[in-house]
């Protein structure tokens, strides 16, 4: 009876496998489309949010107190001159008409013109975005490179002194207001110790910025083959990047720790241990790669956090990024840059989430192949 059962099941297995294979061959191209379709669906899913952002931004900026017309009309303008400017700017139309005009402009990639810099917002943002991205991405890298080992260390020794130390350090980091950290760091490392360069933005005034290829000074200076310039840029970048990184180490480390703990107690890690695989292999090839999945999601959150707090850090370090740009505009009730900034960041955030989805797919074949 037993052998017959065996052959039966094997026959079933063979038939099933054959079907699977045939099916697999059939849907392979579809799968590739599925991958793409998955991304498209993700994009489409983000569209309502984008619409929401556009509406909210419009309402928010129109609700800002202050009168751009008065600002444009100049210091000595009379009330009637202001009204003329208001009419010229279309600010006397109904909100709905203004919203329509706004959408029309958006469709032409026209984000309006900034009062305070005098430039089209789109070009201002393009000129400043690389500065912000260079800062936030460096901070994110820095934070991730610190937090991952910390989290792994804490997870492999849960409840140990190392674990608690990691937690205290990381929690202290997230408890410091970034502007306070920034001021403190620049006071200590620039003013007292003189180790860091002056907090005057992306580059010491005695240097010429590298020719713009990517807009990232670090990359551009390397492409230009100018080592001195590279280190000058790096020097300027370190303090603000550390300030930002300190703030987000905690969430990444916490998530790494929790995720690692979960994975380390999972069945397949037990299998790996039972198979006598070496500890580093278990930890890094088996556990960490699996543990990275939720960490990736956290990274998306953290990036949004970084973008928010980069505003304060940019202010402290005179960093010419979009954050300080938006801040100045907000204080000045300059609608267009605030609007453009928020939109740009929302789009950036959506793109980043897409990137994370792709990364997810790279790490996790289930996402890649089952999509």
């Amino acid at each position, binding site marked *: 009876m037993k052998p017959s059962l065996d052959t039966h099941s094997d026959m079933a297995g063979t038939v099933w496998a054959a079907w699977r294979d045939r099916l697999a061959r059939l849907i392979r191209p579809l799968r590739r489309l599925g991958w793409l379709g998955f991304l498209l669906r993700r994009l489409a899913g983000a569209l309502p949010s984008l619409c929401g952002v556009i509406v909210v931004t419009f309402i928010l900026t129109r609700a800002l107190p202050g009168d751009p017309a008065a600002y444009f009309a100049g210091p000595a303008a009379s009330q009637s*001159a202001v009204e003329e400017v208001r009419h010229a700017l279309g600010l006397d139309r109904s909100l709905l008409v203004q919203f329509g005009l706004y959408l029309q402009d958006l469709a032409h990639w026209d984000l309006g013109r900034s009062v305070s810099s005098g430039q089209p917002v789109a070009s201002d943002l393009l000129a400043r975005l690389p500065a912000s991205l260079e800062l936030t991405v460096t901070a994110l890298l820095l934070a991730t490179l610190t937090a991952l080992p910390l989290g792994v260390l804490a997870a492999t020794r849960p409840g140990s002194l190392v674990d608690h130390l990691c937690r205290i350090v990381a929690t202290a980091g997230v408890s410091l207001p970034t502007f306070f950290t920034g001021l403190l760091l620049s006071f200590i490392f620039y003013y007292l110790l003189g180790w860091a360069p002056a907090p005057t933005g992306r580059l010491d005034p005695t240097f010429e910025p590298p020719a713009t290829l990517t807009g990232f000074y670090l990359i551009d200076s390397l492409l230009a083959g100018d080592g001195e310039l590279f280190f000058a840029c790096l020097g300027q970048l370190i303090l603000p990047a550390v300030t930002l990184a300190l703030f987000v180490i905690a969430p990444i480390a916490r998530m790494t720790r929790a995720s690692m703990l979960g994975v380390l107690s999972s069945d397949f890690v037990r299998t790996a241990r039972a198979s006598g695989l070496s500890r580093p292999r278990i930890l890094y090839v088996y556990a960490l790669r699996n543990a990275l999945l939720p960490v990736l999601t956290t990274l998306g959150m953290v990036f949004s956090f970084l973008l928010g707090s980069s505003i304060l850090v940019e202010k402290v370090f005179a960093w010419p990024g979009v954050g300080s740009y938006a801040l100045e505009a907000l*204080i000045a009730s300059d609608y267009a840059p605030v609007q453009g900034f928020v939109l740009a960041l929302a789009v950036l955030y959506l793109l980043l989430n897409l990137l994370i989805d792709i990364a997810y797919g790279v790490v996790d074949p289930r996402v890649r192949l089952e999509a």
Partner: protein
Amino acid sequence: MKRRLFLQSSSAVTALTALPLGAFAQADRRRELLIVANELGPNSLDIHTVGANRPSYGVSWVCYDRLLTFGAKRLPNGVMSYDFSKLEPELAESWQVASDGMSCTFKLRRNARFHDGTPVTARDVKWSLDRAVTVGGFPTFQLKAGSIEKPEQFVVIDDYTVRIDYLRKDKLLLPDLATPVPSIFNSELVKKHATEHDPWALDWTKNNVAGGGAYRLEAWRPGQEIVYVRNDNWTNGPLPKIRRIVQRDVPSAGTRRALLEKGDIDMSFEMPPKDFLEMAQAKGRVKVATVPIENALWYVGMNVKSAPFNNPQIRQAVAYALPYERIYEDAMYRRAEKMWGGPAHAPDASWPQPHPYVYDIPKARALMKAAGAENGFETTLSYDLGNATVSEPTCILIQESLALIGIKVQINKVPGANWRGALLKKDMPLILNRFGGWLNYPEYFFFWAYHGQDAVFNTMSYQNPAMDKLIDASRFETDHQRYVADVRGFIDIAWNDVPRVPLAQPALDVAMQKDVQGYRYWFHLQPDYRQIFKS
């Protein structure tokens, strides 16, 4: 001319001999480089454009020339200042007021060139003045103050001669030509960029310099920095010593101070008064040049249109209840001139001069009682967030002090750019503000700040026909005696009615490295790099 030739050849010699000595060349280059950090950079390269901010005036000042400029004098404290009483040639080699006093003819320099090499002609002058009086907004307003109003006033005689016809005999006309507004543009170059919608090519000049000034624009990264490089062909004045200027935007004042003290920047204009005081006292490597800003005042304004400040007794009570001394000490750190405790009547026509009120709470209480407001009232004190370093402590001190006479004050900070709109509405009952005029005459100040025309700077909506009459009379009064009488008259009215209570005359502080020389104060408060050099 000879001196400049010498300078040029000597710098050529140093350049040649210095070639093998890298370190020396480096030091030399550093000496010709000026690094400036300010809170805010320009938002336009052209003062005529709508919404151009103050730093943009500075760009116009060094990248463009005017027909005339002012001479210089040394102030009692040793700082150099422009001299309002002395007009000097810039683009105009000479000028002559007609015998009837109703026009003035200007002879242009024949060797003057724009940055692109085009000669500066009378047509450029006319085009530029036409533009300034036509584009509207601030430039047009400013020229109107000197009775420069219509294109017909500017007549081209020949390539190098231009005449300005007067509408009335206005003593402000010639000084007005030396302000940054009537800068002379390379008209042919600008016209190439004119469009139907933009006949004066404001969009183009906003981002491009079309002048012939002592400095060319090397780079402008709005919100980050502006870099000037010397125009070596400039001949409308002594050639500047500084070859390259990097002016960075560094929003944090603390950072600017640290940069100065570390020697990483050469100069900074904007800093909290406390920092200037400490740097001036420290006698370290940084020096501070301080000049009281002409024709400018910090003041508390009360809206006279509505209760409770429509009652002059209440306004006087407030004037007696302001803690002048403490504001001067703790908010302004003495970087200002005291403007209180003067005689009851204006002794002369100088301006600004101290008002007669002092801090006297019993007297203030008595006045409140006399006004029937001994139980006090509630009100809101507004200030411009852009001036927060001084305004906020001042407001807190005022709040505390007014509480003593029963006035409960809420402090309301208004974000920078909203401030102008808020002023325009004229509905804030109590404000702390600062106002100054470029042209240094009392009637100029009063015309904007007290005249019943109700300009935006008459923030109190004050209207008094008697005062208007005196102001108007003094503007065109040629007899000195009568002029002084008019001025003393309107000052006395201002002291008696106190729609605004001056607190102090602010000072312009500039902090710079010890080796930076030749700083000169200008009424527009922007740096003039042309006179600066390093020792």
